[in-house]
């Protein structure tokens, strides 16, 4: 069982070249901000290290921050063996929203990443099957982006009543 | 020419032979479908149909039949039209034709031929053919899977069915179902038990159990209803059928159930013989007893249907080929030995 601060310190020690940052909102526990290019290595380390053993990915959500012109991915991981949880955040610029996939680390990320791609349009590089999942395969746009505009017609059918 | 035609038309026995079993089957099917829903209802702690016709919804099947007749006759665009349309009638014809050799009472049998059992088993094999025909002609993958399952199942289970029927034939020494029935009259066993084959020979009880399991499979009843298992194959070979043609399938299935149950009644329970010797005997009572025995077996089939889950296709084959078939042949030998010794 480790606190977020301890994990942050431990990570900085193991990845000396990478800059980690603790994000603290007004509510909720602190999150660790991880640079996008290393997320896969960090994830693998978090899963396999004997002192961390984060063996499950509880949730993976895609977000769109219009003010910062950024896309974000929130990872919530948990260790059933040691009983601690952690939230990771990844931020990438809107115009180049690419995040390496963690599908090979936690299988469950497969569908979660497809959903994030479908909903906010983040491309997960290296994902084996990055298709839309909830919307039809030929839908236009990504509905949960804050600048989303609904298409007027879908296959000749109006989408507004 | 003209006079010959007239004599044929006026040949009453022929008309009777045509109409009588048909009437019996039609009336039975209406009653049995209503009965099945009532039985299911009571088993499941509910009432079943209660509205149509007043008393316990007795007219429900008639109303359903009228509805089905009025429905549009839909043939899928890519289906093989002729085969698709023909299959349900062929299926019903097959089970109907088999009723010809069933001795309904001491006074009535459609055709008293001396190879009755042989004829019956041969004619019912056409059922498999019509099911495959329906499945293939529908041009639907679920239908096809259902048809394949059905073919495998019926071909396999015909072996234990025939083996157990053979067991009875060994005891009776005749293929004529009328003769088989007549051999079982009287109440001589232990002084009061009727001379039915099931009481005559302990190994015939085993034979009956195998026979009953096999006819469950032959008539596609739970736990062997794989060809039309609704939760796996949607409706199996009936998937594309609707309206009157679907009703024909239903009719054929219920007729098949009755046919095999009646065969069981003839082979093991003394056919039209009264259980009380001469008391309540005679052709009319004979018909009553015969139908009662058949319907009791049909009821047991329904009872099983609403109680058990369904087997898987490989388990079904396992039961047939490695349990029932060896058992039925060993049993055949044992019955023969028993007959030889006693």
């Amino acid at each position, binding site marked *: 069982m480790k606190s977020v601060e301890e994990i942050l310190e431990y990570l900085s020690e193991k990845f000396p070249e990478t800059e980690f940052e603790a994000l603290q909102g007004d509510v909720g526990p602190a999150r660790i901000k991880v640079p996008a290019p290393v997320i896969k290595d960090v994830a693998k380390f978090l899963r396999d290290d004997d002192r961390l053993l984060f063996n499950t990915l509880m949730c993976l959500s895609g977000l769109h921050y219009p003010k910062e012109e950024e896309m974000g991915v*929130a990872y919530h991981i948990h260790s059933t063996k040691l009983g601690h949880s952690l939230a990771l955040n990844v931020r990438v610029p809107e115009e180049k929203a690419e995040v390496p996939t963690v599908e090979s680390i936690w*299988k*469950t990320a497969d569908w979660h990443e497809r959903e994030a791609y479908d909903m906010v349009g983040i491309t997960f590089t290296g994902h084996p099957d990055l298709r839309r999942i909830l919307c039809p395969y030929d839908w236009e746009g990504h509905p949960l982006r804050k600048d989303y505009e609904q298409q007027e017609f879908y296959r000749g059918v109006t989408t507004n009543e | 020419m003209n006079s010959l035609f007239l004599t044929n038309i006026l040949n009453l026995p022929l008309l009777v032979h045509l109409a009588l079993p048909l009437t019996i089957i039609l009336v039975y099917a209406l009653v049995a479908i209503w009965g099945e829903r009532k039985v*299911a209802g009571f088993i499941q702690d509910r009432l079943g149909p209660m509205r149509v016709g007043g008393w316990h919804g007795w007219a429900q099947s008639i109303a359903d039949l009228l509805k089905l007749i009025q429905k549009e006759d839909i043939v899928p665009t890519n289906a093989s039209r002729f085969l698709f349309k023909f299959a349900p009638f062929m299926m019903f014809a097959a089970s109907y034709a088999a009723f010809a050799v069933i001795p309904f009472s001491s006074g009535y049998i459609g055709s008293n031929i001396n190879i009755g059992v042989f004829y019956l088993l041969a004619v019912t094999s056409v059922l498999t053919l019509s099911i495959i025909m329906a499945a293939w002609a529908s041009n639907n993958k679920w239908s096809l899977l259902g048809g394949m399952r059905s073919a495998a199942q019926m071909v396999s289970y015909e072996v234990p069915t025939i083996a157990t029927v053979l067991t009875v034939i060994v005891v009776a020494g005749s293929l004529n179902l009328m003769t088989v029935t007549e051999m079982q009259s009287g109440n001589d066993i232990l002084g009061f038990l009727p001379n039915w084959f099931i009481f005559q020979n302990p190994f015939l009880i085993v034979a009956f159990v195998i026979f009953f399991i096999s006819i469950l499979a032959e008539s596609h009843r739970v*736990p062997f209803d794989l060809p039309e298992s609704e*939760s796996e194959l949607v409706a199996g070979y009936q998937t594309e059928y609707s309206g009157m043609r679907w009703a024909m399938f239903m009719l054929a299935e219920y007729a098949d159930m009755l046919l095999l149950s009646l065969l069981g009644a003839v082979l093991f329970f003394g056919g039209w013989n009264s259980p009380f010797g001469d008391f309540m005997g005679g052709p009319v009572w004979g018909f009553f007893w015969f139908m009662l025995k058949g319907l009791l077996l049909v009821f047991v089939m329904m009872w099983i249907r609403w109680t058990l889950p369904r087997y*898987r296709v490989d388990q079904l084959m396992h039961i047939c080929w490695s349990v029932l078939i060896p058992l039925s042949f060993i049993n055949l030998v044992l019955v023969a030995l028993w007959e030889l010794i006693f």
Partner: protein
Amino acid sequence: MIELISDTGERREMTINMGPQHPSTHGVLRLELVLDGEIIKKVKPHIGYLHRCFEKYAEEMDDYAKVIPYTDRMDYVSAMNQEHGYVVAVERMLELEVPERVEHIRVIVAEMQRIASHLLGIGAFGLDLGAFTPFLYLFTEREKILDIFEKVSGARLLYNYMAVGGLMRDVHPEFKEDVADFVKTFRPKIKELDNLLSYNKIFINRTANIGVLPVEVALNYAASGPVLRGSGLKWDLRKDDPYSIYDRFEFDIPVGSGEVGTLGDCWDRYIVRVREMEQSLRIIEQALESMPDEGDVMEAIPKRIRMKEGEIYVRTESPRGELGYFIAGDNSASPFRVKARAPSFVHLSMLPAISRGSLIADMVAIIGSIDIVLGEVDR
């Protein structure tokens, strides 16, 4: 005509669509199956047929409380648990204290809903395997729960009963007696179910050693709830990450043991649900005993919710597993982002992994045993 054998005489595989209209896909799930005879070579699930834009709607709402009716519609067979998860998440974000009476009523209705949901899940599972009668027996019991819910909330399926910080209305005066009556009559029915279905030879034949899910695979796929417990891991969020007042109650966590087959097979997942219903009854009994008789259930409901900035992930134990709500607030009354992490969604994603090489009939058993609700998968 369907061609199974090519012109050159070699065997061909057949692609078949199971669903979206199929009796045993539990809704509008579509599976693309590649078959060799009846053996499944490949499974490709397609979802989204029931997508009703829950997350989009949640962002459009101008109040956190207005999302509650939409949570009902996700997992429509356990609406109370969905609401419970959402209100717990919002309360934790607001750091809101909830009155005792409210917590007790919430736990009681949530556990009743868990029983109702399991009854449906088990019944439908039996139905998938051709056992029609247990389904109706179980529905009779479910009906009694729904009757109580109707008295409590006015609705039978989608309740909109819980509110942030309280409840929409107080329970009816005879609530305690009604629930106690139900607990008393329901307990013997579980025995009956064991006799009729659980230990039925054919049922065991159909479910034992089918769809085996080893515990490591389950964790890698983040399985939870009865599916994970069926694989033998003692893991229940009511105990391992307690929310509401679950830490006060005494109950066991039933796990699969490979009693009739392999650990983690369909039967294990099934039996975990059956045993869980007994434990839910225990929780209900304890909660009934300690529930305060007086108290205003609406006093702690905030007039207007204004969320601070921050992200939170709160998970609760729904009948199907870990129901997580990820909520991001941005100093306004409207949610910035709400994501529901639905257990069915996660469980369905592992279907290809556990069903390869099985028969069509097994596929039906596996889908039934992971007990998915498509409303929750597609949201």
